[in-house]
Every structure is written in C-alpha cells, then in structure tokens.
C-alpha cells in the first residue's frame, strides 16, 4: 500500500507541474494551448532518443533545453492566435495532430519504454519516483520564488491582471510573455521527463496528457496554479486507488468523471474564483 501512495504522489506531482504550466500560459498569456499534451509527448520522445546516445541526466538536460527553446519561440505563433479564441483552439489542435502524426511516422504506433533518470530503489520505493517528486517540488518552489520575490515575477502578475495597464507602467509586456512561455515550457518538459519513465509512451499519449491537464485545470479552477497543484494530486490518487481497489480499466474514466462532477457541483473549480487572473 505504501508504494501505491508514493506512486500517486509522484504522478500527482507531475500532473500538478504540467497543469501549472498550462494554466500559467492561460492566466498570463490568455492562451488555451491544446498542443500542450503533444508538446509533452514530443519532449518524452526527444529525451528517449537522446538517452540512446547519452547518460539519462544529460539527455534530460538536452531535451529540456531544446524543447524550452522551441516552446519559448513558439509564443510568436501563440501571440497571433490570441486575437481569435476559436482560431486559437483550431490551430493549436492542428499543431497537436501534426506532432502526433510526425511521431507516428518517425517512431510507429507502438509503446515505448522511456529510460528512468535514476535507477535503484530506497526500500520499496523506486528512485525514479523520488526524483520525480523532488524535481517537481523544486521547479514549483523556484516558480514561487520568481513570482513572489523578483521584479520579473511581479511584472508577470501585473501582466496577468491588466496587460494594457502594465504596458503603460513601463513593463515590457512582450518580453514578459516570452518569459512566461519559457516557464510554461519548462513546466511541461520537466513534467514529461518525470512522468514518461513511470508510464509508457506512444504518439497518442499526447491526448492522455492533454486530458489530464484539462481535467486538473477544470478541477482546480481554470487559470489557477494553486488549484492545479491540489487537483493534480486529487486526480492521481483517484486514478491509482480506483485501479487498485476497483479495476485498472476504470482508471481511464476517472478524469472525465471528475470533470463532470466538478462542472455540475462547482463549475468554477475547487479553487477558482469568478474572473480570477492569477500568475
């Protein structure tokens, strides 16, 4: 039982991280990026491919650096889409399908085992799970330090609250948004490298990632980073314990079930407030 609890914490940390990145871009940049799951899947494949030629830690750093660069400059496309919400949804969905198709072409549809960052175990807990939790906590802590104690963090909050006013106050909003895109990418890539060795990846995993991200976001409150963290753990525990106590096949229905429940009983999410903007 103890390993199930720890596994849930490890997966929950990854869920929290990936959803925080999604909501960060939504809260500050006002972008619903439906290519987010595909971006994570692509990161997992890049990491897996690099690890064939380099030690896992080096491969992870290489994959994060490469994908963060792509994610940061991807803001150039996303910023254009902000003007039309329907266009944003359609284009980011198309990008997701394009990435999925590319992965299918390059790697085939088959399951792929991604190497762990660290091997071995402490008692009955694999080190990869511990590394996932530690990395996730470190990244989220770093994020809060940036937001709470740095000028750029305060500028992000200002941009999230009112970008026009932030611009009038002399904040270089465009740069802040690129930085936000970088942070969002960092969250996504780190989460992908943490979670993929605990699961298995196929090109279609993009949709499972996106499903988890959207479920956690709606559960925690759209655009709410704190809510994402809490909801990440709720979803993870619900999935793992239902698989343990009921049936592993039930796991696939849990995210959708939670979304339906929250939309019926508390549409704004567990931690969401109406019209809240949070960086």
């Amino acid at each position, binding site marked *: *039982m103890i*390993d*199930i609890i720890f*596994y849930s914490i490890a997966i929950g940390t990854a869920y929290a991280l990936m959803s925080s990145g999604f909501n960060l871009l*939504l809260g500050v940049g006002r972008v*619903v990026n*439906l290519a987010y*799951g595909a971006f994570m899947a692509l990161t997992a494949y890049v990491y897996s491919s690099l690890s064939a030629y380099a030690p896992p830690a080096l491969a992870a750093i290489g994959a994060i650096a490469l994908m963060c660069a792509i994610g940061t400059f991807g803001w150039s496309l996303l910023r254009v889409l902000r003007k039309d*919400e*329907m266009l944003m*949804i359609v284009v980011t*969905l198309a990008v997701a399908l394009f990435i999925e198709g590319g992965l299918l*072409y390059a*790697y*085939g*549809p*088959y*399951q792929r*085992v991604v*190497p*762990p960052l660290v091997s071995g*175990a402490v008692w*009955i807990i*694999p080190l*990869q799970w511990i590394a996932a939790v530690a990395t996730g906590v470190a990244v989220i802590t770093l994020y809060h330090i940036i937001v709470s104690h740095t000028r750029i963090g305060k500028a992000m909050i200002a941009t999230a609250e009112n970008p026009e006013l932030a611009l009038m106050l002399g904040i270089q909003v465009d740069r802040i948004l690129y930085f936000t895109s970088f942070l969002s990418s960092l969250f996504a890539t780190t989460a992908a490298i943490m979670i993929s060795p*605990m*699961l*298995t990846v*196929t090109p*279609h*995993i993009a*949709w*499972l990632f*996106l*499903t988890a991200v*959207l*479920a956690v*976001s*709606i559960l925690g409150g*759209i*655009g709410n980073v704190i809510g994402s963290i809490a909801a990440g753990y709720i979803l993870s525990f619900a999935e*793992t314990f239902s*698989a*343990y106590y009921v049936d*592993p*096949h039930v*796991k*696939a229905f849990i*995210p*959708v079930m939670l*979304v339906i429940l929250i*939309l019926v009983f508390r549409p704004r999410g567990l931690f969401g407030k109406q019209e809240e903007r949070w960086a």
Partner: protein
Amino acid sequence: MSRVVYIGIIIILILAVVASFLAFQSPPPVATPTGTQTPPATTPTISPTPAATPQVVKVGFLGPVTTTYGTIALNSIRLAVEEINNAGGVLGRRIEIVVFDDQNRPDLAVTGFRKLVEEDKVVAVFGVHSSAVGLALLPLIKEAKVPVFAMGAVADAIDVQVAMNESLKYWFRFNVNASMHALMVTEPAKYIAQKSGFTKVGLLYDQHAWTEAVVKRAKEELAKAGLQIVYEGTIDPGKTTSFVPMLSKARDAGVQILLVWTAYGDGKVLQRDYYSMKPPFVLIQFDVVGMGTLQWDVTGGSLPYQIFAWYFFAKTPEAQKFSKAYEERYEPLRYFYPPYFMYDAVYAWKSAVEKAGTFSGDAVADALYKYGYSGVSGYWKFTAGHSPLFGPGYITTVAVQWTEKGDVKIVWPPNLAEGDVSLPPWMK
C-alpha cells in the same frame, strides 16, 4: 475567459478521450516497428538462380509482412526455399514465392488467398498469423484443397473445426494452440513451485479472445497441481501505461508466482515496473512481443530474474546451423516467433511432397499427417485438429531466465535446462 473557450475546452476534452480510446485500439503484436504499412499487393520473389529455368512451382506467403515477426517469418521461408532450390528443388522444380500482405485483416486475407490460389496457382500457402484470419480462411481452404502452414492462428476453435471436418485436412498449424500456451507457463510455474515450496499464484492476462482458452486451461492445471490462485487481473491490450496497481495488489494478496500472458506490447511496461518495484514474487510470462533477446534493449535492461516462456531456443546443432545461416543471410536472429517454425514448415512441405510424389494438396496433406516431420524445432506430429503434439520428443517450448548480465539461461524443461531457477534476491 469567455463561454466559447469553456465550451471549446469541454468539447476538446471529450474528443481527446474518445480519440485516445480509438487511437489506442490494440495494434497487432509486434516487437518493434519495421516500417510503414504497404498496400496489399502480390510480389513475386525472384529466384536467386537464372529465371530461364522452365520448371517452377509457386508457393504463397500470406501474412503481415511489415511487422517484425512477419518479416522474420518470410525471411526464414526464403532461406529454406533458397537452400532447397540450390539443392535441386522439389521433384525437380524450382520454388518461387509469391507474397501477399494481409495486414492481419481477414478481409484482405480472403482476397489474398483467392489471388494466390486462383491467379498465381500456388500449391501451398505459408504464414497466417491471426486467428481471425485463420477462421476466415477455413471455408476457402476446404474449397481450394491447398495445404496451409500457419505460423500463428492459435485459437482452439480452429482445431475443433479441423478435427471434426475431414475436408479441412489441408490446414496445419506450425505452432502450439491456445490451450498449449497455458502449459507453456503453467508447467514451468508448477516446476518452480514444487522446487521452492510455493503454493500461492496469481494470473495476469490480456483481456482478449485469445486468452479465454488459455486461462481456462491454466486454472485447471494449477488446480490439479494444488496451487491456489490468490490474485487475478486483466490487461487492457496495447493500452496499459502502468502496472504499479496490479503488481502492488498481487503482492498484497500474497502471490508467490505471477503467471502472465500478453501479446500486444504491454509486456515491456510490466517488465519495467516489476524490476522497478521488485515485488517479492517470481514473474513467469508468455509475451509474444518479448520473445527474444531484443527485449533487453527494449526495456533498458529491466529483465534480470524474470522468466519467459519462449517458443523455441534449443541449442541443438540443427537449430544453431539454422541460426547461423539466418545471420549470414540477414542479421543475427534475436526474435524467436516464428523463424524456426516457418523454416521447418517449408521443409515439412517438401518432405510431404516427396513422400507423396506429387504436389496435389490431398496427397501432401495425407503424407504430412501420416509421417510428420523432424526439423530444427523438434518432431512435428499432428493431432486430429492438426496442431502439433506438445511435450518431450515432439515440439517443446522452453522457459528462460534473464541474468543480471543480460544473458538468458534455459531453466525449464529439466532435460534442456542450463541451470536452476534463481529466485530474485528481493524475495529473501
């Protein structure tokens, strides 16, 4: 955030879930991808010797040629054909192979079979992996009277039909049937349980038609051996992303040996999670996709102490000669479904043709059933359902155990064993 975005998110969420279910539809069991799917087409294989030779007899290959096992099966058949042609052919005729990619689809297989028989005039058909394909072909085989040498199609239902219907005598399976797949795992499990004093076992298997007969037979065998089943779980074929809950539950149930049957690529995830969690039980598995030394690379070396039921891994001089010839012609043989079986199938057909003195399907089928064939895999003698006899002296599968160094040793059956089973150190 406008209502449009909320509605959009909800629609996309629903679409994503539906898409993921559809996208994760079980792919055929394969080890690794070997390229893109090609449209079904017949491809005559050019004989390695001058094409001017007038006396030619054609045989067909009907199977999923773009999968790993399909490619290896075809390579093995080509190797046997080349050897036979170089030695003078069959009844003085050179063999030519015509290939049809059925993609494991019954509809394509039916089209392909008709094409091979009616247009290409083949006198024998090799291949046939899927049980659905095998069942779809039975009425056509009866009509065409052309011997078929299947590499898979292990459903017991085929045996039943063949045993009850004389006009299906042209069907021969060069593989053990589904019930025997149960024994491939239960026999080594019983052997280990007896040696180690274990009494509690668990079952984990694909939730799929192919495991129905397997599980039924496995439960009967385990009950007869006095082994108590304390855990039973199912695998969503091709979709399972983590086995942590299942392994944890098996451990909490007190399982001492976990018996596994999987055929859709989930095995590698199970093997990774087992080695990562190190639950205190022995893992014995039949994993079609993991049936070879390739699996070590696929799982990143997560295999130590795990036991696998493999179709064939004997180190007899004949088997090693085939393995060496395959390596010289293609590449090192690292995947064992179904090269030995299909290589034997071609020679078994040749032997039956020569005994019958004709290519006639009736005579060839009768000769093969009457005399059987002794090949690199063992002695092929067929039951009334035209499935090979399974056991010592006939077709014998093996159980191998991976070492920490990445080697495998045969641990069952005792007469072929290269060493004792090493219990995982985390069980102590």
